[in-house]
């Protein structure tokens, strides 16, 4: 029983599914929040898949998502600014989800991979994710 893939499956069904539902329905603000949450979850899923399939080279995907995900959300906030409204539903969930989710995934992965260049990459991804999450949720709140 590959626990990493099981975790990935849980994250996909439990997280990505509702994010899709949120992105497809409701006000523009709620959709942007759902999209932001989806990019965060995606990065974690890629990390888990990389470990589950025992393919360290898949981590590059997570690295690119950690950088492009927030950029995509900032695009939406910049260009959909006036439609987002003051306090879109689900915004409060964003920052805690990032602060809890990222370490909860990166730390066990670091333990599993052991010290070395790979661990450095994981830590970098974790930091990028946290920084991106905080900044984008602030940007959405102030849109």
């Amino acid at each position, binding site marked *: 029983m590959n626990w990493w893939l099981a975790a990935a499956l849980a994250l996909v069904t439990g997280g990505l599914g509702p994010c899709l539902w949120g992105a497809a329905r409701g006000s523009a603000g709620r959709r942007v929040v759902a999209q932001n949450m989806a990019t965060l979850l995606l990065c974690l899923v890629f990390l888990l898949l990389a470990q589950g399939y025992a393919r360290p080279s898949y981590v*590059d995907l997570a690295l*690119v998502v950690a*950088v492009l995900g*927030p*950029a995509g959300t*900032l695009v939406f906030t910049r260009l959909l600014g006036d439609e987002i409204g003051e306090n879109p539903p689900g915004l409060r969930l964003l920052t805690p989800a990032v602060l809890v989710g990222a370490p909860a995934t990166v730390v066990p992965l670091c333990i599993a991979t052991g010290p070395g260049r790979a661990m450095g990459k994981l830590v970098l991804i974790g930091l*990028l994710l946290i920084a991106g999450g905080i*900044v984008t949720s602030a*940007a959405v709140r*102030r849109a």
Partner: protein
Amino acid sequence: MTRRLRLWVLTAGLLATAALYVAACTDLPAFGGSWHPYGDRAVRAALQQHTANAVSSVNFDQRAFDTLGEETVLFSSVLGTVVLLRRTRGEKRVAPGPAEVPAALRRYGLLVLPVTLLIGLYVIAHGQLSPGGGFQGGVVVATSLHLLYIAVDYKALERIRPLGLFELADGTGEAAYILLGAAGLIAGSAYLANTLPLGTFNTLSSGGTVPLLNAAVGVEVTSAVVVLLAHFLGQALEIESEDGAKDGGREA
């Protein structure tokens, strides 16, 4: 044609296509089967050419002519957009006002831009080793430049993005790919032949012409996406019809 008739025609077409497609699916080999003759040959050829990433070997060595066509599609689409989104006679360019951006976002943008740039260059350089390649890395680099617009404002982006230079890079990237192909001819073998020394497996310089073609595609894709977005940004933010009220085109 009335909406109702169109729906009837559409439904009939969709049902017929669905029936045809499902009938075809029943004869397809089962999903996940192990019979992939072309794939096995391609992997053997990739390893023989000392290219670790078999997909890049197929893209830039075995079926390099496809990639030449694909890059030319990107090149001509950018040229088409330059022509279609040009500023016509009755329009003027108005510089947009600076956008007010929270300080945290501005710092994040300026911090993450170099990181994204490095990641993009890393993805291009390791194209023939790990997942990635000229196209993926090129788009990441181009997006990193546009972080300036997203996180700071349009004027900052325009300062670091001289359009003439990027159009030159676009044409040069395409010409470089074609001339690298001609190098095969000059070396006596066929067009787009991999005649350079193959280097040792799994190192940055392995794979003969694959890394060079990767770099050419990276240059071209980066400049293509920058020019593409420049014209879309130009249309959306800058170009106004001459007298604000009446639009340059047909009066509605």
